[in-house]
């Protein structure tokens, strides 16, 4: 069974994004970038499927600038077998990303696509579901447990109010939530080995996919700042203040 894992290079989750003064976007110059944490979880799950002997090959794919090669090397160091970079300096919208992935899937024919439920930059939570709709493959989003057996995946999902379990026929799209696993750190020997693994680079234009933006970004602004309030000395003072504020 072949597993495809899309991964995205994003601002590191520990870094607080700053809005550019000209309101055109977020300032990413000289900011630490990393693999999107949900993508890391997806890579980990795919590698575990391979270690269990369920998956035979794990292919990581990223759409992004040249530097996204580093993100793919991280996936390779975690245990992916090979990688594909669809190179583009364009910032693609989720629908375009889904269409590019659809094209790659057409070439690679994986049995399972494991991906993060959301990227922590755009916070859209959309690509997996869009891809499922475009391919007419079943979807199981927000996964906290995945069991693959007999051409099916049994997926436990985090839903409003609790957990839901679905069984999807393969090929399928599964998106990872936080509780699916705890991703490993790549070991030094594996980082070295990853340098020798295959990383193919394709130009976005070569895929013939319509990636024109549908949305015009009018402006990007900073949210209203919340200022720190006061420190109270005792629980009694707290209650008095809350009563005065009218919230008790």
């Amino acid at each position, binding site marked *: 069974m072949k597993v495809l894992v899309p991964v995205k290079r994003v601002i590191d989750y520990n870094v607080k994004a700053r809005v550019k003064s000209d309101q055109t976007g977020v300032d990413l110059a000289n900011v630490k970038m990393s693999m999107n944490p949900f993508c890391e979880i997806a890579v980990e799950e795919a590698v575990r499927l391979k270690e269990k002997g369920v998956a035979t090959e794990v292919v990581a794919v990223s759409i992004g600038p040249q530097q996204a090669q580093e993100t793919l090397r991280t996936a390779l160091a975690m245990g992916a077998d090979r990688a594909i970079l669809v190179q583009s300096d364009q910032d693609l919208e989720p629908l375009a990303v889904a269409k590019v992935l659809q094209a790659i899937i057409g070439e690679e024919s994986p049995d399972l696509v494991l991906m993060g439920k959301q990227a922590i930059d755009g916070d859209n939570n959309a690509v997996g579901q869009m891809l499922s709709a475009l391919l007419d493959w079943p979807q199981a989003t927000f996964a906290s447990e995945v069991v693959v057996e007999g051409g099916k995946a049994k997926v436990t999902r985090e839903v409003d*109010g609790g957990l839901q379990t*679905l069984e999807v026929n393969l090929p399928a799209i599964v998106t990872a939530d936080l509780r699916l696993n705890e991703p490993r750190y790549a070991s030094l020997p594996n980082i070295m080995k990853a340098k020798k693994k295959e990383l193919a680079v394709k130009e976005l234009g070569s895929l013939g996919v319509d990636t024109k933006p549908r949305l015009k970004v009018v402006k990007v602004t900073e949210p209203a700042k919340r200022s*720190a309030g006061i420190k109270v000395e005792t629980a009694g003072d707290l*209650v008095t203040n809350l009563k005065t504020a009218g919230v008790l």
Partner: protein
Amino acid sequence: MAVLVVADHDNASLKDNTHKVVTAALAMSGDVDVLVASAKVGEIAAAAAKIAGVRKVLTAESAELGQGLAEAVGDLIVGLMGGYDAVLIPATAQGKNFSPRVAAKLDVAQISEVIEVVSADTFVRPIYAGNALETVQSADAKKVLTVRPTAFKAAADGGSAATESVPAPGAPAKVHFVDQKIVKSARPDLGAAKIVVSGGRAMGSAEEFQKVIEPLADKLGAAVGASRAAVDAGYAPNDYQVGQTGKVVAPELYIAIGISGAIQHLAGMKDSKVIVAINKDGDAPIFQVADFGLVSDYKTAVPELMAALEAAGK
């Protein structure tokens, strides 16, 4: 233009999120219909028909719609979109599950987590864990939006819309519902509660979480929330998680106990009206957004708070 709002419900009753999304829809157009897709639409549809400003309530009933299968709900909406220029979907786990499918099938962008309707084609949405707000204008013929309910006031009741049933799509062939464990709680809904009491990693165990956080919440008639660290460690169920990738809340009062205030947690609660932080580390980032901070060990602070509330007649 005609706008379709997809109702939020638990298969038994209509949720207030629906009223909030109707408010967003009414900012786009006067022609707003509500779709109730459920295993049993009766009471939910009746409640939706009462929302002031709603033109018509559409209902579709099937087991798969009740299970919230994204393929079923998505197909239903796509089939109805011939008659609508926009569909507004609550940004709940359920809504986010099917909404992008609708966008993809219509070949349009999804505009996620809308917090402000500037005009019928221009919207504001948070990005980067709420550290930036993006205003986007859509050139697509049809708009697909998920709407963050906490950003809108609930539309009042007082309407009497007609109800019309539409056929439910067939069962999806490639996905099967196995089971569902939904925790029924007597407490208010996390997303809709006026007060939320949240516990963090400091609790150290599920027993401690239940012993400390829950009685305080019950005294205040509050919902219970948690940080990711508390959920990951099994102190609290997954759907208690407040944050960038969990639930977004904006209650009148948010009390964070033993929570450091990571960016991802703040993203889910910084729009609360009043924030209280109890943390033994006076430098914890949570104090930068707290209106009232109590630098103290929760083990003494929470019992004292219980007593002070008691003394204040709570």
